């Protein structure tokens, strides 16, 4: 499958701790994107990293991309209860605008 595969499937941490989740994929990509989904809601775009980039930051989020290993990681620093959600990576191949999502990592931040 060319879709991203997130690891771990679920993560439980205390407020203030960091949360790290990983995404692996099998095909060449144009960019990789991370999305957040609160229960029963739509997905919200968090960050996009292009294939020629290695690291990007947005607030408490840090994303890395290693195209040689076909993997990406999302780090949430100083987590808050409001960060409780499912996080999905999505890959965008060079052709077209279709995004292919992985199965997600469910993050629970306990107060």
């Amino acid at each position, binding site marked *: 499958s060319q879709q991203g595969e997130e690891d771990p499937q679920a993560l439980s941490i205390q407020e203030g701790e960091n949360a790290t989740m990983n995404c692996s994929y099998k095909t060449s990509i144009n960019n990789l994107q991370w999305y957040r989904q609160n229960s029963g809601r739509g997905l919200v*775009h968090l960050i996009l990293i292009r294939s020629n980039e290695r690291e990007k930051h947005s607030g408490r989020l840090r994303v890395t991309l290693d195209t040689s290993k076909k993997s990406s990681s999302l780090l949430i620093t100083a987590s808050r209860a409001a960060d409780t959600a499912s996080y999905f990576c999505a890959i965008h191949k060079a052709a077209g605008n279709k995004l292919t999502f992985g199965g997600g990592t469910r993050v629970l931040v306990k107060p």
Partner: protein
Amino acid sequence: DAGVTQSPTHLIKTRGQQVTLRCSPKSGHDTVSWYQQALGQGPQFIFQYYEEEERQRGNFPDRFSGHQFPNYSSELNVNALLLGDSALYLCASSFSWGNSPLHFGNGTRLTVT
């Protein structure tokens, strides 16, 4: 500036029936994509519309069809509903150029009994 809006929010149908879901894209966006998300799974790509034509299609049967109108809004139609069609159906809009991120609506929860 309204984001992506979907209607209805919830829907209950019986096996064999047909359903139409509607989506209005974010202002300025010209491309609409539809995804199916089963409980506990990631979104699965159904198809994408641009300039009123289906531009890409995922691995879904012909029972799934769509339409895009001149104002860029879109409909998803599913015929001969099966129990397995029960899912959250998400509409996402974007610009047509390659690196445009998707803006999602809150989805339509379809239950087939």
